[in-house]
C-alpha cells in the first residue's frame, strides 16, 4: 500500500512540476524559435534584462528564445527590423522608456501605434545624484544655489532629449529655477564630470551610486522612500507633488496584428517570469523595482509617456513646431533632391570640361577636389536647416570644418594646375578593378536576396576563378571552409545573425 501511495505522490509531483509549464496554444505556437530584438549592443542593461528573461522563461516554456542585437539610432533600427517581420508573434521588441523619446522625435506617434505593448517588467525611479565631496550636495542647497546663479548652475547627464534630460527640465519647473544641461556621450562619462566637480548634479538611476562612495542621491522621484536608500528624501517630501512618478521602465512590445491567442500566451509567460523568485531577487538586489503591467495598463503608460515627451521635446526644440520654414524641407524633401542633383551636375560638368581640355590627365585629381568642394557647399547649405542656439549650436562645428576644407582645396587646385607637368597619371589596369567592384556589388545584392551563405560560397569560388586560380578542388574546399567557419564562429559563437536572404525568408 505504501508503495502505491508513493507512486501516487510521485505522479502528483510530476504532474505538478509540469503544470507550471505553459503549453502551446491550440494552433501550436510556438513552433519555431522566438526572436527578441534588443536595441543596444550586448552588455547594455536592456540586453542583460532580455537575456535574464530568456533564462527564466526557459523554466516555464519549452520555446527557444534567440536574442538579436540591432543597435543604432536609439532603437529606430531595431524597431524597423521588428516591423519588417510578419506579425506572427515570433519577433519581440525589448524596449525602454528611452525608445518613446526617440520614436516621438523621429517618427511621431506612427511608430508607437505600430506596436502592441505587451508587458512592462521593471521600473527604476529617476533621481538626482550629487557629489559628496562638493560644497553643495543636499537638495535644498542645490535649489538655493541654482536660484542664486540664475541659470549658471551646471547639470550633467547622458543623451539630449532622453528621459534624464527631460526629467531634469520637469524638476527645474517644479522647483522654479533653471540650470544648464550639459550632455555627455554616456551616463558614465557624465558621472565622471560630476566626480571631477565640473557639474553640480546628475540625473539618473539610483543604482548608479552603488559603485562609488562619493556619489550621493539628493532626491528621488518615487512615491515613498526607497528600501535600499532609506535616508534619501523623495521629491514629494521636498515639496513637489508632480514628481513622485518619474521612472525609467523596461518591457516588451510586439508588432500589431498578432492573434489574441498568442498575445495571451505571452501574457501568461510574462506573469510567470514576474513571479519567479530568482528573477525578483536578481533585480531587487540592484535596486530595480520589478513590476508587471499587462497590455492595458502598459498602453496607458505609453500614452502618457508620449504626451510627456511631446511636450518637453517641443520645449527643448528637438521637435520642430514651425514646419512651414522654407529651409526645413532642405534636409529631405524635393528641395533636397534638387540639391543632390545640382551636386552631381557640378561634378559632371567639371569632369566633362576637364576631359575636353588640355588638362585631361589631371581629370581624377581635379574631380576629387571638386567633389570635396561641392560636398562642402552642399553641407554648408544643409547646415542652415539646423536650429539656431544661443550658445554654440549644431551648425558651428560642421561649418568650421567646411571653412577649413574649402581654402585647402582651392590651394590644392592652384598647386595642381601650376605643377601640372610633374604629374604622372597613375597607370594600371583600372578596368579590372571596376569589373571587380561590379562583381562585389553583385555579391552584396546576392547576400540581400539569397542570403549570406549561398552568396559567399559563390563569391569566393568565382572570385578565385576571375583572378586566374584554376585548382578546382582547392577552390571548393576554401569556399566551403569559409562557410563552415563563418557559421561556427560568427553565427554560433558570436550570435551574429547572418542574413539568410529575402527570398529564402519568403519561401520558408
Amino acid at each position: 500500500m505504501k508503495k502505491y501511495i508513493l507512486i501516487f505522490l510521485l505522479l502528483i509531483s510530476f504532474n505538478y512540476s509540469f503544470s507550471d509549464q505553459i503549453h502551446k496554444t491550440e494552433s501550436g505556437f510556438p513552433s519555431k524559435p522566438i526572436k527578441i530584438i534588443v536595441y543596444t549592443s550586448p552588455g547594455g542593461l536592456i540586453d542583460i534584462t532580455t537575456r535574464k528573461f530568456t533564462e527564466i522563461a526557459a523554466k516555464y516554456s519549452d520555446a527557444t528564445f534567440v536574442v538579436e542585437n540591432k543597435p543604432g539610432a536609439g532603437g529606430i533600427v531595431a524597431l524597423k527590423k521588428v516591423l519588417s517581420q510578419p506579425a506572427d508573434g515570433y519577433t519581440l521588441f525589448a524596449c525602454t522608456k528611452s525608445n518613446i523619446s526617440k520614436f516621438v522625435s523621429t517618427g511621431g506617434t506612427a511608430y508607437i501605434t505600430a506596436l502592441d505593448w505587451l508587458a512592462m517588467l521593471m521600473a527604476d525611479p529617476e533621481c538626482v545624484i550629487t557629489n559628496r565631496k562638493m560644497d553643495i550636495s543636499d537638495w535644498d542647497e542645490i535649489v538655493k544655489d541654482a536660484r542664486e546663479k540664475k541659470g549658471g548652475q551646471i547639470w550633467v547627464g547622458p543623451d539630449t532629449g532622453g528621459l534624464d534630460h527631460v526629467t531634469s527640465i520637469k524638476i527645474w519647473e517644479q522647483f522654479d529655477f533653471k540650470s544648464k544641461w550639459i550632455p555627455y556621450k554616456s551616463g558614465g562619462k557624465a558621472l565622471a564630470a560630476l566626480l571631477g566637480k565640473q557639474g553640480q548634479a546628475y540625473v539618473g538611476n539610483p543604482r548608479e551610486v552603488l559603485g562609488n562612495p562619493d556619489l550621493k542621491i539628493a532626491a528621488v522621484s518615487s512615491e515613498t522612500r526607497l528600501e535600499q536608500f532609506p535616508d534619501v528624501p523623495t521629491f514629494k517630501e521636498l515639496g513637489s507633488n508632480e514628481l513622485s512618478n518619474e521612472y525609467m521602465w523596461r518591457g516588451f512590445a510586439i508588432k500589431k496584428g498578432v492573434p489574441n491567442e498568442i498575445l495571451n500566451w505571452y501574457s501568461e509567460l510574462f506573469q510567470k517570469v514576474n513571479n519567479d523568485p530568482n528573477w525578483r531577487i536578481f533585480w531587487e538586489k540592484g535596486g530595480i523595482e520589478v513590476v508587471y503591467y499587462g497590455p492595458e495598463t502598459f498602453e496607458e503608460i505609453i500614452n502618457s509617456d508620449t504626451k510627456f515627451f511631446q511636450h518637453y521635446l517641443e520645449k527643448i526644440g528637438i521637435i520642430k513646431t514651425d514646419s512651414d520654414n522654407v529651409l526645413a524641407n532642405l534636409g529631405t524633401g524635393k528641395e533636397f533632391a534638387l540639391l543632390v542633383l545640382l551636386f552631381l551636375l557640378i561634378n559632371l560638368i567639371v569632369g566633362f570640361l576637364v576631359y575636353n581640355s588640355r588638362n585631361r590627365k589631371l581629370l581624377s585629381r581635379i574631380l576629387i577636389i571638386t567633389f570635396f568642394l561641392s560636398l562642402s557647399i552642399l553641407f554648408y547649405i544643409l547646415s542652415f536647416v539646423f536650429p539656431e542656439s544661443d550658445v554654440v549650436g549644431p551648425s558651428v562645428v560642421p561649418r568650421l570644418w567646411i571653412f577649413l576644407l574649402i581654402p585647402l582645396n582651392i590651394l590644392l587646385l592652384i598647386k595642381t594646375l601650376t605643377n601640372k607637368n610633374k604629374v604622372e597619371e597613375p597607370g594600371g589596369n583600372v578596368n579590372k578593378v571596376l569589373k571587380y567592384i561590379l562583381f562585389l556589388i553583385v555579391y552584396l545584392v546576392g547576400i540581400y536576396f539569397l542570403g549570406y551563405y549561398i552568396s559567399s560560397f559563390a563569391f569566393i569560388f568565382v572570385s578565385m576563378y576571375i583572378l586566374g586560380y584554376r585548382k578546382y578542388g582547392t577552390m571548393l574546399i576554401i569556399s566551403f571552409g569559409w562557410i563552415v567557419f563563418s557559421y561556427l564562429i560568427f553565427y554560433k559563437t558570436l550570435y551574429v545573425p547572418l542574413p539568410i536572404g529575402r527570398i529564402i525568408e519568403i519561401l520558408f
Partner: protein
Amino acid sequence: MEILSHLVEGFGVIGGFIPILIIMLGVIMGIIAGAMPGLSPSMGVALLVPFTYTMSPTLALILLVSIYIAANYGGSITAVTINAPGTPASVVTAFDGYPLTKKGKPGIGLGVSLISSTVGGFIGTLILIFFSAPLAKVALKFHPAEYFALAIFGLTTVASLGGKNWIKAFIAAIFGLLINTIGIDPISGVSRFTFGISFLYDGFALIPALIGLFALSEIFKQLEEGGHKAKAKVDLSSNWPTIRDYLKLKFTIIRSSIIGTIIGILPGAGATIASFISYDATKRLSKNPEDFGKGEVRGVAAAEAANSSSVGGALVPLLTLGIPGSATTAVLIGALMIHDLTPGPRLFVSNPGLVYGLFASLLVANVVLLVFGLFGSRLWIKVTNIPKKILFPLIFAVSIIGSFAVQNSFFDIISCLAFGVFGWILRRNKYPVAPIILGMVLGNIAETNFRRAVMMGGYDVFFTRPASLILLILGLVSLIFAFIKSNKNPKINKMKGAK
C-alpha cells in the same frame, strides 16, 4: 607593501587549471578577433559577453580582459601582413609594418609588434596596479576644454604624417571630421546631414570605414597593379629581430607605453589616439624622421606599445571610479552587472579577490600572449605567402562579414564597399587615408568637448585653463616644426587655420 600581498592573493585566485585555460582561450580568441578586420577589441568583447553570462564573475572577467589585451595585439598582425588593420589603433602599426612586409621582412614587423605589445601591456598593467588611485584623480580634473585641446593636439599629428602631401593629408583629416558630424548631434539632439535615412542617425560606423579605406582599397590597388599575379617570395626562416634589435627599442617602447597608459585613462580618448600621438612623438624625436612610413621599426614599436598599454589605462577609471574609460570597458561594466557586481572603488573592499585576480590575470595574459605570439608569428607570416588569388577573395569575405558584425546591419556592408572604392580613388591620387580615420575618431571628441567647454565657461575657457593652453600651444608648436621640416615654403597661416 599591501598591494603586493594582495597581488599574491590575486595570483592564488587565478592559479588553478581552469583560470589559466580561460586565459589561454581568451588570448586565442582575442588574437583572432583583433586580427579579423571588423572585430575591434570592444566588438570582440561585446560579442562574447553573452557567452560569459553563465560563468562565475571572476572567470568571466578574466576571459574578457584576456580577449581585450590580445585583441589589441591581434590587430597588428593583419596590419603588418596585408595592410588591413584589424583594429582602429593598428592603423598606425600599418604605417611602417606593411612597408616592412613589402620589403620582404614581415618577420621584423611581426616580431617588433609582438614584443612592443606585450611589454606595453605589462607596463600599462603595472601602472594600473600601483598608481591607479592618484592617476584617476588627475583624470577627473580633465575639463572639456582639455579634451578639446587634446583632440586638436592629436590632429596636429597629421602635419607630420602627411609630409610633403600635407595639404592632401589635412583635406583627408578634415573630410573625416566633416563626415563625423553626420548623425544625431550629441549636444542638441537634432539630426544633421542624415537625409532622413535612419541608418545615418548614428553616423558612419568607424569599423566599416576603416576596413573599406584600408583592406579593400589595398586590394583594389593591387588588382590595378597586377599584384594578384605576383608570387610573394619571402624567406620565412630568417628575418626575425634579434634580442639586440629589441633592446635598441627600449626607450621607444617605454615612452610610448607611458603615453598610451595616460591617454588610455582619460575617459573617451583611447587606444587609437594614443597610437597616433606616440608615433608622432617617436618620429619627431628620431634622428631620421624621413625613414618613417618606409618601414622604420620604431614606428611599429611606438604604435603597438601605445595601444596595448592603453588597456591598463582604460581599466583605471573603471576600477577606481566605476566609470568606463573606453568602449570596451563600457562592455565590461555590463558584463560585471549581470554577475551582480558594480565596478568602482567599493569593489576593492567587497571583492578584493576579484580585483587582484584581475590584475594578476592581466599580467599572466600578457605572458601567455607573448608565448602564443612567438609560436603564432611563424604561422601568421605564412599569410604573406598565400597566393594572392586565394587571399584576396578571403579578405573580401572577411571584410564584408566583419562590417556586418559591427551592428548586424546591411547598411554597414554597403558603406564599407563605398569607402573601399573612395579610398582606392584617393590613394591612387596620393591622398593618405589614415587621416580620415583619425578625423573620424577625433571629430566627436573635438566637437562635443568644444561645445561643452563653451557652454560651461565661454570661449576664453581654452586659454584660461593652464592645461588646455599648454596642449594648444604644444599643438601649434608641433605644427610649425613639422612644417618647417617638410616644406621649404611654409604656409603657416594656412596651417594655423587648420587648427
